[in-house]
């Protein structure tokens, strides 16, 4: 270790190797079997359970927890995977405190929900560790479907389509499949190579070919895909990053938080990653929290999240905000960037206080500056690279409830599609449902 948190400017190796290893280890390790039994005993097996309703993929939570409590975690895993083939990753990254666990009757009654997320991980990890894939393909239909984007929505669609007997080709622009599971999750939530392992396990269903380095406009056209396949699923995510629209944005060391997070995920040796002494993250979502927390864990001395609205409007959950605070991240609300100061590289960011009124958010005259040698932009992603001719609605590809776009034979799912929150679990649900609709329509057409 040649540097410390106090080293000025951008530096790698600010913390000792063992500290970094601890910082980036599994934040919520898998429950031990006895812990899982105890946790599962707390489930009341509710009638028409609220947790199940709150789950975007409608996993039968009381049933899988009961299966754990009776010593059959493999059966529990199958219950989970039948609704959500990426149940392993969702168990790690779902904001359960805003979904199933928020409505758990024991959360409502005691402020202590059944640990649904961790129980789900116990079940899915148990089955996946055995290396078996719990589903088999149906008889071949002779139909082929192209899926553009190998993130959660694309993978969920591909799996369901393949399971129903269709042949699927999945294209992805990046080097590896997995999408945000591979490139966009805080490292301590899915340490090791879990995202890649999960993809490999999912592909065991058979009938899915993955082609990386390809995207629409990068070797593919929508017309070409439509010609070669019976249906097309667009699951291309939100590849663009919003600009600050503040003077000085082009200075060195002003970067996109999503790129910082992706680099972290791909780098095995965290001591090689650069981070500033004073890091400023601008935004209020999960991306902002993930970037800020990990900056701190890499050894930045001061990390500040600045969000333009008040605390209640941050899209990062309370749990995530508390986690950020607990590692020493400071969160400033109601301030927006007006200018990035520096000479070559960033040195300070100037913010104006904001106030929201009937005409929306307004900047006040009073400003303040925060020292920064690294600035991360986390103010939202946008849809880019959309093929011509698709109806767009609110910045997303317009779809109906089944994921059908305005073009016949083309479906869309995940963050790029309208409707639903931008969550992994929502993407899985949309991918799965689009696949079901595609299969039904292909079979209808065949009949």
């Amino acid at each position, binding site marked *: 270790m040649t540097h410390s948190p106090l080293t000025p400017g951008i530096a790698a190796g600010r913390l000792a190797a063992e500290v970094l290893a601890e910082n980036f280890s599994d934040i919520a390790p898998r429950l031990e079997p006895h812990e899982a*039994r105890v946790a599962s005993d707390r489930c009341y097996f509710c*009638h028409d359970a609220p947790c199940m309703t709150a789950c975007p993929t409608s996993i039968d939570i009381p049933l899988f927890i009961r299966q754990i409590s009776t010593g059959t975690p493999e059966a529990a895993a199958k219950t989970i995977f039948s609704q959500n083939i990426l149940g392993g990753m969702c168990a790690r990254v779902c904001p359960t405190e805003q979904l199933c666990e928020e409505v758990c*009757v024991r959360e*409502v*009654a005691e402020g202590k929900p059944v640990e649904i997320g961790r129980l789900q991980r116990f079940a899915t990890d148990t089955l996946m560790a055995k290396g078996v894939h719990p589903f088999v393909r149906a008889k071949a239909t002779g139909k082929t479907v192209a899926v553009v984007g190998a993130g959660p929505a694309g993978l969920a669609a591909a799996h369901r389509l393949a399971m129903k007997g269709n042949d699927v080709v999945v294209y992805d622009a990046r080097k590896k499949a997995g999408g945000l599971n591979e490139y966009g999750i805080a490292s301590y939530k899915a340490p090791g190579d879990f995202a890649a392992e999960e993809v490999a396990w999912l592909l065991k269903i058979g009938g899915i070919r993955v082609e990386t380095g390809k995207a629409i406009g990068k070797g593919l056209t929508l017309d070409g895909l439509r010609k070669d396949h019976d249906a097309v699923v667009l699951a291309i995510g939100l590849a663009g990053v919003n600009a600050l629209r503040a003077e000085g944005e082009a200075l060195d060391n002003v970067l996109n938080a999503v790129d910082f997070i992706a680099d972290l995920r791909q780098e095995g040796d965290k001591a090689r990653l650069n981070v500033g002494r004073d890091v400023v993250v601008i935004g209020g979502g999960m991306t902002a929290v993930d970037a800020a927390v990990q900056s701190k864990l890499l050894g930045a001395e001061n990390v500040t999240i600045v969000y333009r609205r008040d605390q209640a409007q941050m899209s990062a959950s309370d749990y995530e905000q508390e986690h950020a605070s607990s590692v020493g991240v400071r969160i400033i609300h109601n301030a927006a960037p007006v200018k990035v100061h520096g000479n070559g590289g960033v040195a300070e960011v100037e913010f104006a206080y904001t106030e929201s009124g009937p005409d929306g958010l307004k900047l006040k005259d009073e400003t303040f500056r925060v020292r920064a040698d690294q600035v991360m932009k986390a103010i939202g992603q946008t849809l880019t690279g959309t093929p011509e001719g698709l109806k767009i609605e609110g910045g997303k590809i317009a779809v109906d409830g089944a994921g059908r776009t305005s073009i016949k034979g083309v479906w869309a799912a995940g963050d790029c599609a309208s409707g639903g929150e931008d969550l992994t679990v929502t993407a899985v649900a949309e991918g799965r449902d689009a696949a079901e609709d595609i299969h039904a329509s292909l079979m209808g057409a065949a009949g």
Partner: protein
Amino acid sequence: MANLTTNFIGIKSPNPFWLASAPPTDKEYNVRRAYEAGWGGVVWKTLGSEGPPVVNVNGPRYGAIWGADRRLLGLNNIELITDRPLEVNLREIKSVKRDYKDRALIISLMVPCDEESWKAILKAIEDTEADGVELNFGCPHGMSERGMGSAVGQVPEYIEMVTRWVKQHSRMPCIVKLTPNITDVRKPAEAAKRGGADAVSLINTINSITSVNLDDFAPEPTIDGKGAHGGYCGPAVKPIALSMVSEIARGAATRGMPISGIGGVTTWRDAAEFMALGCGNVQVCTAAMTYGFKVVQEMISGLSEYMDQKGFTDTSEIVGRAVPNVTDWNQLNLNYVTKAQIDQDLCIKCGRCYAACEDTSHQAIAMSANRTFTVKDDECVACNLCIDVCPVESCITMRPLAKGEVDPRTGKTVGDYANWTTHPNNPMAQAAE
């Protein structure tokens, strides 16, 4: 502060909590620790005849069933009577009793079913200064195959005969310990009384197989691939024990006979319940085996607290207090009508009452779109299942309808006490006088 001292058939102890004859009372070391922890009395683990001691299996001798968080609910054992030499036990009993004169020390006995054997063992223990004997007619495994234990307890004539021998050859107070592995527990109790027993104690363990190993397809605990039934005890058997105790407490021939209550006593409350059904004291084993001897401290403080709150000063005020309220089904008031009611402030909306009632009972609970659960009085038969499955204590309660109120289910007005014996649907009904 309530006085917990008890005098049970002339045997005094500072509290009504005795350790039952079982592994915890097999030797001096344990018994001294038990007395130090506060136990009022000990029934020394069953002694057999002089000669080569019995042998135990060398594989597992206990099996269990568990509730949430592996809380032990039921324990099964295939251990036999003491496997230590008689003279060692006798020396230790004498030594302990000398140092703990204020505590009860009873010796449990089991020897072959002939007068000479009983005469010999009674003579052998004469010198120990123990306070009494308990005749083990209950152990359902191993020794019963040799014509002892429950093999005797299942034949009232044998009970009477052996008890008579004991009373004839010893001046010690005599407790007869009964097996529950019979059809009518009053018969062995009556036999004990005829034989001159001073008291009965019950229940001994129940024949049981706690589990089957689904890999080896053998009962557990498994000894080299085989299993034999054991004796079941612990919290799970308490309801069975309470019922059997009540039968003796209210039986025409046994009413008033001193009873030492055994069967799943785990807390002060369990003990108080046994006492209310007629037990002068209780004997405990599984709770001690699960948590250690210290549990008695909760039992002592809990019973004392309860008695203070109720204004009882002596345990005799509890003993038998519930017996007059134990009756036959045909004496229950059919004009007592209650309705379940759900406290919406306490309800956590799990819906278990709804599932239970809708699927398995009388479709008497309504569920609204926002998960509010309410009782339909015109369907509710007051079966109590909703209360039994509700995870929140006191969330659902039963409201008795007052006399003169109309039951919305039957349309009938609640009237005076009337039972099955006079009900018009009863072909054997007798007109009320």
